[in-house]
């Protein structure tokens, strides 16, 4: 029995995914060690639980055990329990709302002894499972429009709870499922509208409303002149134009009323509207200095000064990429980018190939989440994205996130084998 299991674990699972998973986790540990260990001549005990690198060994060990357990389990169990897992995760998050501990402004943690867990991380794979089940079974059960409505509802529930926990960054992660929706037939216009909204927001913010209005109007006039079809759909295009104008003028209002001051600051910092190297800019500035000072070859392992000496905030968690950028330089950065690109590509590739559509749906959910985390996390360290506090999958320090991503990935690996 045991032997069978061992054989079934080693055979048939996607070796490439497992390999990348292990490589990323090890790189993560090395980076955490480097950024939290200051050489002082004393001998190093990597199992020292007072240190982040010591604790991370525990998280890595337990994650590996989790992965093995998932691989041993019957692959149908996930499809079967999808909704229950989702409901459990939602309940856990609601409980956190009441009994949670506040860490860094977000009430998203449950404290157990000296460790804290963040149920949000578990809600990610739970939601991916629930959506996969919904798409798999709902296509025959519901009318198309209800199906979409329910699907949006599935992601709005966790978003609502997480916003209530004041953890906006994590809430945004759930928007990444739009990629899955798109693959499953959601109108591409929604993606376009989303992209257009972001561009308009930046335009009206960086320039001002009048310029943004002028640009939008010019674009419409050009379309009016060169595209014959454009004139025919006058009403539709009129509505689009009107909403664009309204959006332009409400963008600032939106910005002023809805966002928290620190979020405003991060956005305006990213857009280059404020420059205060010692203040709000500080994190981004320090992060860029750390990465930029790495050069092509890097300063060498354990030789980073910026990430070691706490200049970079959250250097073991959200800003772990700085440590790699500083000590391993451009080569290290490329390596990380390529590893993630390949990971995401491989998941999509395998999902696309799979005969069981449940696996495909789930695979897209996994890829969406990892994609979002990867792009946002690295983007914020190099100043291309506002600073949103979400971890870099498999690399950042933290038990909950490593467990969450491990479960997320390995359920896919398990199901993909079938």
């Amino acid at each position, binding site marked *: 029995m045991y032997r069978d299991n061992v054989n079934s674990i080693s055979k048939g699972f996607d070796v490439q995914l497992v390999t990348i998973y292990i490589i990323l986790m090890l790189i993560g540990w090395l980076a955490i060690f480097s950024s939290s260990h*200051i050489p*002082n001549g004393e001998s190093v005990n990597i199992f020292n639980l007072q240190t982040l690198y010591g604790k991370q060994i525990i998280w890595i060990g337990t994650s590996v055990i989790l992965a093995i357990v998932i691989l041993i389990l019957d692959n149908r169990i996930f499809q079967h329990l999808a909704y229950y897992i989702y409901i459990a995760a939602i309940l856990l998050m609601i409980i956190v709302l009441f009994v949670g501990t506040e860490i860094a402004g977000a009430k998203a943690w449950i404290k157990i002894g000296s460790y804290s867990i963040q149920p949000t991380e578990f809600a990610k794979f739970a939601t991916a499972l629930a959506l996969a089940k919904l798409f798999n079974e709902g296509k025959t059960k519901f009318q198309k429009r209800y199906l979409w409505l329910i699907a949006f509802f599935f992601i709005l529930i966790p978003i609502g709870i997480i916003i209530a926990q004041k953890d906006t960054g994590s809430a945004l992660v759930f928007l990444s499922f739009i*990629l899955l929706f*798109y*693959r499953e*037939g959601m109108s*591409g216009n929604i993606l376009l509208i989303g992209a257009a909204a972001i561009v308009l927001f930046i335009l009206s913010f960086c320039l001002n409303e009048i310029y943004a209005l002028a640009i939008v109007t010019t674009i419409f006039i050009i379309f009016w002149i060169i595209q014959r079809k454009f004139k025919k759909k006058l009403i539709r295009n009129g509505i689009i134009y009107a909403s664009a104008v309204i959006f332009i003028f409400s963008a600032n209002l939106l910005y002023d009323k809805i966002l928290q001051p620190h979020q405003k600051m991060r956005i305006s910092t990213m857009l280059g509207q404020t420059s205060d190297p*010692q*203040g709000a800019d500080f994190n981004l500035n*320090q992060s*860029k*200095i*750390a*990465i*930029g*000072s*790495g*050069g*092509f070859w890097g300063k060498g392992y354990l030789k980073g*000064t*910026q990430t*070691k*000496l*706490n*200049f970079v905030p959250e250097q073991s968690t959200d800003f772990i990429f700085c440590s790699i*950028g500083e000590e391993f*330089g*451009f080569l290290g*950065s*490329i390596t990380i*980018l390529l590893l993630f*690109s390949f990971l*995401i*590509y491989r998941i*999509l590739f395998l999902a*696309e190939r799979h005969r069981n559509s449940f696996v495909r749906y789930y695979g897209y959910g996994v890829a969406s989440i990892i*994609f979002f985390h990867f*792009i946002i996390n*690295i*983007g914020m360290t*190099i*100043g*291309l994205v506002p600073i949103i506090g979400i971890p870099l999958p498999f690399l950042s320090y933290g038990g909950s996130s490593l467990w969450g991503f491990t479960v997320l990935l390995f359920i896919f690996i398990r199901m993909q084998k079938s």
Partner: protein
Amino acid sequence: MNQQVQQRYYLILAILGILVLIYLIRLFHLQVIDDSYKVYAERNALRQITEHPERGLIYDRNDSLLVYNEAAYDLMIVPNELRQFDTTDLCRILDIPKEILLERISKAEKYSKLIPSIFEQQMSKEDYGYVQEKLHKFPGFFVQNRTLRSYPFPIAAHILGYVGEVNDKILENDPYYQLGDYIGISGIEKAYEPELRGVKGKRVVLVDVHNRERGSYDDGKYDKLPKSGTDLWSSLDMRLQIYAEKLLQNHSGSIVAIEPATGEILCIVSSPGYDPNLLVGKSRGNNYKILLNDKKNNPLFNRALMAMYPPGSTFKLANALIALQEGVITPSSFYFCPHGYKVGGLTVKCYHTGTVNLISAIQVSCNNYFCRVFYNILSNRSKYNTIQEGYQAWKNYINDLGFGRKFESDLPYETKGIIPSVEYFDKQYRKHWNANTVISMGIGQGEVATTPIQMANLMAIIANRGYYIKPHVIKAIGNKSTPNDRYLEKYYCGIDARYFEPVIKGMEQVMVAGTARRSKIEGIPMAGKTGTAQNPHGMDHAVFAGFAPLNEPKIAIFVLVENAGGGGAVAAPIASAIVEYYLKDDAKKKELEDKLNPSSP
């Protein structure tokens, strides 16, 4: 897969690819093209800490400490590293109002945003402990250990001088100094600044974002240990200096004692003086103002080097020497003194009458005799055709004897004194002048003015029979056996050694049977000359000059007590007390000290 779905799959992959490409370009720019981040990183993490060397110590000639260092703590600021901090908290710790805090920050910023400057000087030990503990709350601040000068005895303040912060002008001209650095401002501290200051060291340390040091950078490869300043041995005799200052403590005046063979100053007093400990550290500014404004005592004024007095009768010795060298008198030349020197309507009074030769003229300080001597020098028509030539010849001798010029040794702020030039008298008298016009200079009155150090130096010349070494206060540098080679040269004054004997004989008579006979010391043959420096502003100044022992002199001395009347009564006893103290053994010294302090056990 239908076509639309496949399109979407590829589109998603394309989005991934494009984003990763953008990131790669951005990273390439950040890490490979743009070099500025490397510079920022260095500033971020490295701090250069100046290690101030300990200033050299100053010993007296018998290895007693005159000046040493005491630890002090300065709070330093690096404006660029400032982050938001609790200003009220810092104000409370340092007990300063917020305006001062802001003012200091902007001053530091004006100096340099990157180089540390002093924010709060010399914190108390309690403040230091408190600040050190809370330092992580005040990024941009750190504490630097410094040393302050300290003086075990409140003596010789003028000569030792003081140190203070460098001013803007020095900062501009000398790159060695940084804002808040100390520099010798006067006295020995100034004259030997390059030796005393040592060599600054530096430490390059890693500093984290909370302003904590995290060890040295690159195993201390860039660190440089500070090199302590060089110790100095002063020629001053600490006990003699204390004794001399005590003798003069209730008077205004000056004492200078020189070891004739070396030019080393044994003690140098200007009274009233001040305690050098007053001009140290934080309170220096205030105390300096108080001392400066004390117009009655004028304690900052160094009378020994700067006060110009008419030398009075002691000047007669110089004229006697010149006359002998010029051949206008011989030791046995005699003149009858009719209670003074009369010329035309003018009379230079003399309190004695009778016929005197050179030796007895010195003994009784005969004004008539020395007026004639002076007349003879200036009107030596066999050598000099005009009064101008004669006067110039005399002036040359006088200058060579150290008058009318500065020694420019290691002594602070000398004045030249006054020996008028030929031109001066030509202008004054429209060229119609002769020896009698300026005759009062023959007895050390009139236009002539000298400083106490110059008079003491004249005594050294006489004791040496013809030469002097620039009076100076530093005997050895770095090591007691390494003599200060700046002041070894002998300056000959153009008067043959044999002409000194009769003068010295006369000075001996002063002590034995002359104007200072009451100050003669048992067992020590001494030469001396009293004087009375006329003071138009009040009572005359009492003057005494001399040296001892007669053969192989060990000490040449000059004493001037302001407004004390005749030299014999006040100045001579002080001089002989000092000579006796210096030349006698320790037991006798103790006895003399006790006599001065009847209250002490």
